[in-house]
């Protein structure tokens, strides 16, 4: 199971707690959408490389 965690904004404590549990013992990657000029090609590549994507607020 490969997880991809995507963040639309800086993750808060609740999100960090949930991500830690979801990623436990799994391969995990992340992508920050809240930076300047996110590379959408890279994000799409990551989505298709992952088994499951969660895009947090």
């Amino acid at each position, binding site marked *: 199971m490969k997880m991809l965690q*995507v963040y*639309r904004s800086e993750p808060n404590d609740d999100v960090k707690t949930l991500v830690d549990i979801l990623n436990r013992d799994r391969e995990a990657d992340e992508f920050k*959408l809240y930076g300047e000029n*996110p590379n*959408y*090609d890279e*994000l*799409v*590549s990551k*989505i*298709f490389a*992952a088994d499951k*994507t969660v*895009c947090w*607020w």
Partner: protein
Amino acid sequence: MAADPNKLAIFVTSPQNMTHVVGIAEAAVRAGKKPMVFFTYKSVHLTKDARFKPLAELCGEEDIAICADSYTCEGYDSAKDIPAGLTAKQMRTQAFHGALLDECGKYIVL
């Protein structure tokens, strides 16, 4: 029908992510993938964004829709004011979200 591994569901629930919606849909097409997009609740306000019509054309009639009930709840006329780029058959119910889950191998919410 089994989920298509080359199809990307984009479920839009927030009214403030149009740049991401367009950016991801266009990147998916560049990668040879097929985006399928559903706008619900307050995200239907994004149908008034100038970038919505090109997005609808990019996706095609079968693969983009909005929640008609949400559109009405937000004050728009779902009979007389169908968003630019859409037809009446793209004014859908939450069942279209079910179709996203059934048809798409990958999924992201914005």
